[in-house]
């Protein structure tokens, strides 16, 4: 099976996953206690006004009608309007996607830059001081929640040292340096827990690889230690690491949501939380769909990467 057919098949799978997520979210948000019309009009609004607004918002129709209508719109790319400010949901989501994507991407880069070298050193120097230091650092990363790391970073680097701004976000289109200064702390905050887990994975995966027969073969060829490690070992060690990295993306994205709140960044996470508070159904649904789309897309990417890094895996299996 060729790459194209494999991708097509996986995209079809992804569409099914996203449909299921969307459906679950649709019914879940309606199961949350609280009426959007009441929230919108305030606690002391009179019953008639609320009833009129409910009628207007289509909330009085049977659930299945609402569902089918919403699904029909969704298929046409229409995410609906926010009940809070009448803006198109898609525009709202795209407007806040950039900061979230920036933090997630930089966080991932930081995590990988820490985890891979530390994990490799740790496995090669196992049970020596390098290993103990790396392991201690990774456990600190794993044990602290991202938002708490964010608060500590804020206190030290913004409040105390004044090196970077504490709040908000500047688009990358306004310059790389200010953009970087605004997202570096949140990125570290989400990257450390993720990197900590990844480092432990790298360590154990590399240790397995170091004991493999083919590593002994490589040494028997008279290759230098570094060549044995990086030419013969690294790619084999990466196979399980990449799998885990893809699955853990969910952890990373979850971290971004919380960290955005700490750093006062208008991202997808904050929009989602605000929308839940004001029962803004269309925005909640849209945000969750976008997040699940990102997650599915990244995992698809990981799987494609996986097939290219592991020649034993063929696209989609059987010939």
């Amino acid at each position: 099976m060729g790459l194209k057919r494999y991708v097509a098949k996986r995209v079809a799978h992804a569409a099914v996953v996203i449909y299921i997520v969307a459906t679950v979210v649709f019914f879940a948000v309606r199961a949350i206690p609280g009426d959007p019309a009441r929230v919108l009009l305030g606690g002391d609004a009179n019953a008639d006004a609320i009833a009129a607004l409910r009628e207007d918002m289509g909330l009085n129709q049977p659930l299945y009608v609402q569902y089918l209508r919403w699904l029909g719109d969704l298929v046409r790319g229409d995410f609906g309007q926010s009940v809070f400010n009448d803006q198109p949901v898609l525009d709202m989501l795209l407007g806040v996607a950039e900061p979230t994507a920036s933090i997630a991407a930089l966080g991932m880069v930081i995590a990988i830059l820490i985890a891979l070298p530390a994990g490799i050193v740790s496995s090669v120097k196992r049970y020596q001081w390098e290993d103990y230091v790396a392991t201690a650092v990774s456990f600190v990363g794993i044990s602290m929640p991202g938002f708490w790391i964010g608060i500590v970073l804020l206190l030290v680097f913004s409040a105390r040292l004044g090196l970077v701004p504490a709040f908000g976000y500047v688009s990358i289109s306004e310059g790389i340096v200010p953009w970087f200064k605004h997202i570096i702390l949140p990125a570290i905050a989400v990257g450390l827990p993720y990197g900590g887990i990844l480092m432990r994975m790298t360590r154990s995966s590399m240790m397995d690889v170091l004991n493999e027969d083919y590593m002994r073969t490589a040494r028997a060829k008279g290759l230098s230690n570094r060549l044995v490690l990086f030419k013969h070992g690294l790619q084999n060690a990466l196979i399980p690491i990449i799998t885990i990295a893809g699955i853990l993306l969910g952890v990373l994205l979850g971290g971004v949501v919380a960290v955005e709140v700490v750093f006062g960044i208008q991202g997808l996470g904050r929009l989602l939380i605000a929308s839940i508070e004001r029962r803004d159904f269309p925005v909640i649904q849209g945000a969750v769909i976008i997040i699940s789309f990102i997650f599915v897309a990244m995992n698809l990417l990981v799987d494609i990467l996986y097939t290219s890094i592991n020649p034993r895996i063929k696209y989609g299996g059987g010939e």
Partner: protein
Amino acid sequence: MTPRTPTQGSTREEPLLEVENLRTSFPTDRGDVTAVDGISFGVDTGEIFGIVGESGSGKSVTALSILGLAADGEVEADAIRFRGEELSTREMSAVRGGEISMIFQDPMSSLNPVMTVGEQIAEVVRHHGEVGESTGILSELRRKYVTGTSDSSRSWQRAVELLDTVGIPDPEQRANEYPHQLSGGMKQRVMIAQALAGDPSLIIADEPTTALDVTIEAQILNELFELRDEFGVSIVLITHDLAVVRETCDRVAVMYAGELMETARTETLFDEPTHPYTKGLLRSIPRVDDDREWLNAIDGTVPDPFNRPSGCPFRDRCDAAFELCSEPLDRYDATGTDHEVRCHLQHDAVDIDDGEPVVEGSLHSRLDGTETEPLDERSGVVEPGGERQ
């Protein structure tokens, strides 16, 4: 160390590889385990030298120790000489893969699953041959992860040639394949090609056919034969299979519990086995014309490595054990040329009387560390059935 006595009719040159008193132990939680306990042997140019023994007797560890590949093992030796020169650890790592190469037991796991077989051979060519291609870490990593190995590079072409040499059909295409795309026999041929890529004078083959079925085994052994005949390489063949030894080896050493019990020319060993352990091994080979329903096994088990008996490690299982067996072993000449046995039955002062070994007077002076050279010419009956020349 007692020098090897030149025996009559032997015109032996200096051995290609000479190992003197090799000892390897592995630290464990329960204390050190001695896997190889003071073995010595030499391998001549163009010779196939077999090391035979049960699983766990230390055959593979011997090979790995010589090459400096015994991972956590502590290796000591009075000398490991190659072409008459003693090799330091550093020198050994330069020779490894080139002058001395190794074929491993399990071709399924000994080839790198994420590299084409062509590249796995070509990298040896680059490192040990003179093809003028950079072997720096950056060039190697670029080749591995970015550009791939060029089909027109000399190292790659040599790899294809070697695949052809070891009898892989369609070598140009096969070179671009990954190990999982090849059969077990083909993988072992790739291992052999890889071992040949550095133009070795000595190949250490550690159970090269154990993981293969019998027909493939015969082909691979033939391959090794041809290598010796065509390129004059010496081969150390490690195996537990006495039939393989008989068919392939010029000389053979029998290993038991980390020690070499008997070393002899193959015909001598099979025709006139001297050590009780060797005899037991040969008796345990099932024969086609034998209609008995049981196999002759040697009673007992290999000694606990944490609790090795003093003296001869085989004495608890040995029919011929006698009072001397708990004393430290020595090497003795036995019948024929180049025949060495580590068994006190061969001692001068031991006489066989009615099948029972009898120790005569001069023995005790030897045990005190004075007198007696165990390797001198002896006279008289050594053992019933053992013919003297």
